């Protein structure tokens, strides 16, 4: 059976196909918590209409431009469903359940089923691809916001910021740290930033480079950096690697660094207890 003949059969029986398709979906049980009947009916009607037009115009090659409206409809639906919490099966079922009414029709017309089956399968696969792409976007967005959350920049005093780094410092993380730090420098007009690396497990050449980059960026914004939280092993590694820290001051503890910062800003802490 040619695709053109298929298209004709579809066109002549559009409303019958639609009715049966909607009924099958209702019987399969639509996710009433995520979608209502009205929407499901509208989605089905729109898709079927576009599907029939596409088969008529462009046959069964999904790469033809005539299929673009169907693909963009499927893309929109699949990605939305991906975000809304539908399972992959539920999303695929939407398309694949179209087979039942179509096959029933073809059997009556004594047509072969394989062409129609393959066509609907292709559409099913396409909608799965788009569904997964939607998931990838969600995962990436979550990764990015996790990265931001784990890089707080706090103000310890007027003019003094602290950046407690927890975990390894890769180039992605460094970008996030630099952006957060510089933004805070601008907001608070701080002169000193204490970068505490107590939580950084290893300092190799790459990590040292990332640190130096961050320090240089802060310096360009007029803020001086102090590195604190240098453990003995880290100090040994730095010397061993020959990393040039230049004129960057290093302190063993955040507390020492803070004291130094206050001194540089000419701040003196005085006890409140009268003598």
């Amino acid at each position: 059976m040619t695709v053109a003949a298929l298209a004709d059969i579809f066109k002549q029986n559009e409303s019958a196909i639609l009715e049966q398709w909607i009924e099958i979906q209702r019987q399969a049980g639509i996710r009433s918590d995520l979608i209502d009947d009205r929407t499901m009916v509208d989605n089905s009607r729109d898709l079927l209409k576009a599907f029939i037009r596409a088969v008529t115009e462009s046959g069964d090659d999904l790469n033809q431009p005539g299929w673009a409206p169907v693909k963009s409809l499927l893309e929109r639906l699949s990605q939305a469903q991906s975000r809304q919490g539908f399972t992959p099966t539920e999303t695929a079922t939407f398309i694949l359940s179209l087979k039942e009414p179509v096959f029933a029709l073809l059997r009556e017309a004594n047509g072969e089923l394989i062409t129609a089956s393959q066509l609907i399968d292709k559409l099913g696969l396409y909608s799965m691809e788009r569904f997964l792409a939607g998931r990838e976007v969600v995962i990436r967005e979550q990764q990015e916001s996790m990265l931001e959350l784990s890089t707080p920049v706090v103000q310890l005093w007027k003019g003094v910021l602290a950046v407690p780094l927890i975990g390894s410092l890769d180039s992605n993380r460094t970008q996030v740290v630099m952006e957060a730090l510089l933004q805070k420098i601008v907001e608070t007009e701080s002169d000193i930033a204490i970068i505490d690396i107590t939580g950084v497990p290893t300092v190799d050449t790459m990590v040292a480079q990332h640190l130096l980059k961050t320090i240089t960026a802060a310096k360009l914004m007029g803020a001086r950096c102090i590195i604190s939280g240098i453990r003995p092993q880290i100090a040994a590694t730095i010397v061993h690697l020959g990393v040039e820290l230049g004129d960057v001051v290093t302190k063993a503890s955040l507390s020492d660094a803070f004291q130094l910062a206050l001194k540089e800003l000419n701040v003196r802490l005085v006890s409140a207890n009268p003598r």
Partner: protein
Amino acid sequence: MVDKIPILKMGRYLLLSIQVDMHDQLAMDLQEDLTEQIVRHSAKGVLIDISSLEIVDSFIGRMLSHIANVSRILDAKVIVVGMQPAVAITLVELGLSLSGIATALNVEKGMRWLEKNVNDDLVAEVESDEDRDTPAETGN
């Protein structure tokens, strides 16, 4: 097209703000103009405001370095202020650290830096008796 970058005199300092896309001729004119004014006014400090610059590439970086070097020879301190965060991050990635050029967050902090770092010409001071035996201290 801007003809040239205005240089303002403020006491013993010169102020200029780069707000346009620099090209070769403009950069050369600026350097010449600035050098001439430093000498003419015996300026001791130069504040360059780049808060309007959304892009600083190696050409601008070289220009700023050149200005700083020439000014140093003319005994004027240079400070660049107002770099935008995105620019700072990009510069660092590009590999330009602008080391050797002082930087500050804004004009206010820049002026404060100049005040602190520009030395007055030697002024004759009359020593009083109490002062005579005060030991010399290493300055900041």
